[in-house]
């Protein structure tokens, strides 16, 4: 392979200085990010097992042994907490802090403390999910983990989030990019949500239905003000980064951020449509949910216009295959969500599988796919090493994309039929339940697809961690040009 005589020929001396600093930033985060990703993937696999058990037990109730640890309520909640706070949070922490550090052009200092916080987060989570399985589960959705782990989780989160904020405070770059806005905001919003909900529901419980309001204020905002901003931040970073073109309209990206900040925190009340709370609270929630169309459309237009003319490049990049799929799902699931927040629509979809389908569409189709894409971009740069198998990446993509599409379609249609039938008094409830079985079986098939994709991803990930760098160098660089590696190696020797 023909290499340039020196990197000066290609980039010039100024470039090398900057390039080394980026390499250093990646190096400063290597261990922490690898820990987060490994933990995230282990939780993803554990969560997938819980998911499969839950899904199969819905259409084949006699499949699981009569053991209280495996009852539906417990494994369903163990699944939610394992994938949301285990997979989602661990991946989000790594992606957010890595993007933040790179955009700030600042190394992460005292990474050891960050690593300790990360370890404590995962210890808290392990205790919490074990607590759910042994029966210490609370009855509050999205907060099922027993209250004795809440302080540990809150302190670990604040410590991890502080590193993102500190990186911003000591930034060396002149500009602030929109991803930094999203990440900073998310790092502020989540502790605020978590602390308030813990106080108002568990430690000093509010009276009556105020608890329900607080519950859904948290439940919806955990998605909208934590996972969504991190996912959108990653999409805004990786789309233009991989394509090598700036985002089409930076103005629109800022409009999207501030309108999301203004509207999303009201939207959770649509979960209580028909519930015994003041009507104006529900109306405010519905209005805010519909207003969410603004940031969603703005983001969709911006992403689409940036990608136009580069569709071939999107297909050639593992990162962008996942990120673009995620960005498209964000638009679609958000628009469906705004529709489901209307009173007339909610009368049908409420308490049906359509809500479950919608939650997976957003949390998996959007957030998880963007995180997968981010990991495909970050890992080679953290390890200075290539992904071992392109085939496994393709298997992962097709299993994930087909799996989540099947799940979203099956549960939305099945849930809608279920809702219409439940609103028809002539149909017996048992018959309504029986009619959902084919859709639930379709969901299990999609679960098997997703699980296969996760296994492919895990194998590729572990293979990449364990292989030696030199093993692939002679075959030619793909994600990282070889001369960058050479400079990095020279830098390390210096």
């Amino acid at each position: 392979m023909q290499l340039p005589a020196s990197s000066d020929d290609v980039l010039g001396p100024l470039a090398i200085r900057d390039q080394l600093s980026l390499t250093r930033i990646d190096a400063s985060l290597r261990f922490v990010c690898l820990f987060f990703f490994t933990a995230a993937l282990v939780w993803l696999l554990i969560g997938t097992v819980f998911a499969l058990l839950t899904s199969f037990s819905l259409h084949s109730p006699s499949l699981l042994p009569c053991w209280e640890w495996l009852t539906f309520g417990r494994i369903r909640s163990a699944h939610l907490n394992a994938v949301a706070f285990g997979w989602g949070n661990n991946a989000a922490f790594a992606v957010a802090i890595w993007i933040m550090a790179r955009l700030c052009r600042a190394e992460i200092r005292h990474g050891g403390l960050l690593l300790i916080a990360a370890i404590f987060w995962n210890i808290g989570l392990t205790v919490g999910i074990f607590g759910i399985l042994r029966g210490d589960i609370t009855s509050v959705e999205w907060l099922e983990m027993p209250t004795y782990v809440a302080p540990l989780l809150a302190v670990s989160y604040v410590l991890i989030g502080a590193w993102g904020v500190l990186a911003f405070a000591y930034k060396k770059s002149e500009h602030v990019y929109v991803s930094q806005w999203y990440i900073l905001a998310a790092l502020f919003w989540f502790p605020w949500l978590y602390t308030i909900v813990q106080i108002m529901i568990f430690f000093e419980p509010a009276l009556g239905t105020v608890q329900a309001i607080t519950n859904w204020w948290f439940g919806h905002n955990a998605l909208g003000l934590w996972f969504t901003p991190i996912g959108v931040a990653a999409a805004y970073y990786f789309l233009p980064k991989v394509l090598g073109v700036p985002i089409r309209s930076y103005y629109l990206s800022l409009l999207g951020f501030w309108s999301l900040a203004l509207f999303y925190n009201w939207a959770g009340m649509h979960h209580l449509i028909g519930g015994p709370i003041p009507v104006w609270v529900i109306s405010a929630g519905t209005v805010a949910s519909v207003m969410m169309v603004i940031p969603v459309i703005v983001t969709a237009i911006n992403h689409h216009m940036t990608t136009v003319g580069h569709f071939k490049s999107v297909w050639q990049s593992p990162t962008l295959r996942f990120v673009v799929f995620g960005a498209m799902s964000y638009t679609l699931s958000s628009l469906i969500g705004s529709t489901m927040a209307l009173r007339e629509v909610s009368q049908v979809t409420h308490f049906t599988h359509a809500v479950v389908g919608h939650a997976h569409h957003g949390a998996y189709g959007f957030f998880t796919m963007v995180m997968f894409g981010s990991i495909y971009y970050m890992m080679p740069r953290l390890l200075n090493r290539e992904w071992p198998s392109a085939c496994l990446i393709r298997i992962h993509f097709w299993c994930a994309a087909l799996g989540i599409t099947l799940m979203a379609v099956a549960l939305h249609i099945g849930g809608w039929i279920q809702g219409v039938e439940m609103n028809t008094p002539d149909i017996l409830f048992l018959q309504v339940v029986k009619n959902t079985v084919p859709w639930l079986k379709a969901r299990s098939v999609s679960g098997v697809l997703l699980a296969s994709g996760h296994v492919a991803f895990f194998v590729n990930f572990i293979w990449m961690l364990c292989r030696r760098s030199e093993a692939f160098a002679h075959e030619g660089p793909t994600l990282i040009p070889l001369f960058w590696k050479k400079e990095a190696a020279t830098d390390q020797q210096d």
Partner: protein
Amino acid sequence: MEWNYCLTFIVFLGIFFFSSGISALVWAVRNGHFQKFDEQARAIFTEEEPEGTHTDYFPGKMSVNSKISNK
């Protein structure tokens, strides 16, 4: 703890978070983050991963030479 004290604490925390948001907006306006959009949109590119270069491919699908000619 009395519920009223608790409520006061929550209200103060709310005021703190709300004013942080407003301060962030004011800071952004004063420091010109709502101007020079072109420059900020290019903040993600460095000499190492410059504008005009695709930086991600499937393993084994891209060589250094084609990457350089791509620039």
